[in-house]
């Protein structure tokens, strides 16, 4: 067959330049500095916005064409999944607890990312990042909506999916991802770009998305797989935006280097702390596991991140110091986090459980240096106690880190039997952090973190009860009232998977699907 490529009048680079550059103007009624009031206060110096290079040159017509096609494919699959009771193809209903964590802890962040990129785009005087931020803002809104659509199907059948917006602003463990984004959103546009565009969307994104989406693929969750793939190519564009952003800032002025380095150090650490939830998900919550957190860290950070920082070294950027301890932490945090949610399982809007013997053997093989030595004994003890009807539920609130807001469950890098305690004083008050990384962040901007809405402290201040609650009545049960404030369906959203409504329903429905009943 005779095949010829049509000769285009304009190449992709030229077409994109004509469609995006030179369409704006210098303001004349008000000075540019007033129209762009956030452009310089962070200390970042930009001399020539035209030096911004867009890696993916999508004009609006291409953007809508591809996004529309992705949407058509996605919603066709979501419909088919729902119509055919696709949820019965899951390996096991335990899997859904990972997805409850996703809906409550990640999906709302997509929405605030949409707002943050809209704000950043509004505030940059340069057209290159403005266009890129605009598209990312629309993408993030799309992600929020497609996730809500995809996961709404599970809300028809399973517990814990019913009130994610309400829970995000209140539930103790959800303050971890929420405060991460609050911190970024309340920073200036340049810090936002390094925090989210670069550190989250480039350095760490593969450690969030690939585990969840692969976990979905391995466990029969076609809805989440399909959403994930539909979003992933948007994510690839976001990655390139993040990388371009940092290159651009570093090439514009050498004075930007220490500011950018400081932000990379801070946000890589804050991101790693949020990813603790993913570590636990990969190691404990997937009936069919993809790989261990340790393996994921090695592939997606040690190798890939290594390549990235080797590349950025030519600007004088160094790998954040605090990340070096992650090669030790990678063997511990999944176990430590799951142990935490297990014991606080009365106050989590998803089920928890102890691993089976097979699962413990998998953990031993994936964590030869740590699982048997530090964690197997306690998990075996808990399982034995649960079998006797004495399942462990902690009854006292935990101490939280002032910065990452995670309970102080992390151990000293050189001693995994000792909790890592760090302390700072500011203006006559004490503040506690979980690590050198978080302490450093606190000490650098204490005025910001002293304002943190820490769930445990808020509970003790009496701010986490439903309106009209009287704490002085006879037999007052503060925990029950907090869970009511959280909108938990008591006994159904929380507690052990064993004996849960999810477990019973899944077994019954799958039974019906395979028999003539």
């Amino acid at each position: 067959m005779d095949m010829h490529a049509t000769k285009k009048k304009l190449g992709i680079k030229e077409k994109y330049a004509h469609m995006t550059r030179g369409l704006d103007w210098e303001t004349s009624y008000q000075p540019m500095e007033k129209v762009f009031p956030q452009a310089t206060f962070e200390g970042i110096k930009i001399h020539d916005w035209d030096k911004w290079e867009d890696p993916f040159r999508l004009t609006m017509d291409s953007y809508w064409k591809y996004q529309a096609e992705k949407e058509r494919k996605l919603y066709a699959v979501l419909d088919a999944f729902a119509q055919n009771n696709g949820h019965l193809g899951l390996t096991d209903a335990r899997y859904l607890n990972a997805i409850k964590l996703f809906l409550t802890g990640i999906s709302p962040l997509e929405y605030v990312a949409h707002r943050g990129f809209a704000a950043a785009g509004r505030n940059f005087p340069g057209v290159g990042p403005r266009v890129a931020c605009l598209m990312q803002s629309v993408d993030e809104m799309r992600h929020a909506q497609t996730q809500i659509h995809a996961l709404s199907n599970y809300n028809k059948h399973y517990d814990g999916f019913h009130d994610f917006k309400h829970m995000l602003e209140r539930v103790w463990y959800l303050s971890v991802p929420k405060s991460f984004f609050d911190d970024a959103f309340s920073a200036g546009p340049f810090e936002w770009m390094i925090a989210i565009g670069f550190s989250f969307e480039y350095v760490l994104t593969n450690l969030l998305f690939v585990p969840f989406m692969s976990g979905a693929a391995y466990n029969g969750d076609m809805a989440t797989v399909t959403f994930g793939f539909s979003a992933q190519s948007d994510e690839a564009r976001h990655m390139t935006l993040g990388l371009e952003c940092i290159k651009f800032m570093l090439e514009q002025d050498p004075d930007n280097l220490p500011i950018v380095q400081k932000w990379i150090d801070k946000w890589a650490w804050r991101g790693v702390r949020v990813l603790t939830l993913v570590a636990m998900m990969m190691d404990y919550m997937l009936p069919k596991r993809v790989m261990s957190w340790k393996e994921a860290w090695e592939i997606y950070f040690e190798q890939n991140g290594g390549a990235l920082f080797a590349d950025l070294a030519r600007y004088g950027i160094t790998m954040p110091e605090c990340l070096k301890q992650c090669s030790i932490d990678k063997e511990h945090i999944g176990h430590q986090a799951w142990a935490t949610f297990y014991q606080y399982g009365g106050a989590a809007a998803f089920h928890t459980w102890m691993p089976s013997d097979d699962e413990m053997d998998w953990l031993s093989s994936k964590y030869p240096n740590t699982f048997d030595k530090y964690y197997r004994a306690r998990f075996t003890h808990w399982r034995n106690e649960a079998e006797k009807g004495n399942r462990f539920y902690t009854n006292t609130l935990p101490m939280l880190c002032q910065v990452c807001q995670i309970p102080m469950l992390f151990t000293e890098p050189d001693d995994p039997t000792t909790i890592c305690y760090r302390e700072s004083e500011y203006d006559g008050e004490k503040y506690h952090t979980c690590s050198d990384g978080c302490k450093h962040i606190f000490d650098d901007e204490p005025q910001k973190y002293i304002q943190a809405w820490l769930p445990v402290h808020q509970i003790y201040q009496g701010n986490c009860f439903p309106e009209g609650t009287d704490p002085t009545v006879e037999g007052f049960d503060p925990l029950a009232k907090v869970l009511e404030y959280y909108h938990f369906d008591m006994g159904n959203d929380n507690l052990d998977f064993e004996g849960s409504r999810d477990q019973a329903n899944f077994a019954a429905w799958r039974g019906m699907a395979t028999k003539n009943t």
Partner: protein
Amino acid sequence: MSKVFIAFQCNEDTRPIVEAVLADNPHAEAIESPAMVKIDAEGSLVIKRESIEELIGRTFDLQELQMSLITLSGHLDEDDDQFKLSWLN
């Protein structure tokens, strides 16, 4: 040398893309997992429009990769004829 990588969904659209990439980049290696194929390569990787067109028998716009791309690593340079990933260090 640092590795670049690109990962695609496993579907009928990406089969010829993966085939073209492996043919044009002898140093590249494909790793398959459920629903995803990841291609690693030392230093750099190039995806050529013409190579894909040879395999699929129709014109191909490289931007169609948007439909199946999962993630990538390295600096990206895109034009009408090729899509290149590389680390400069």
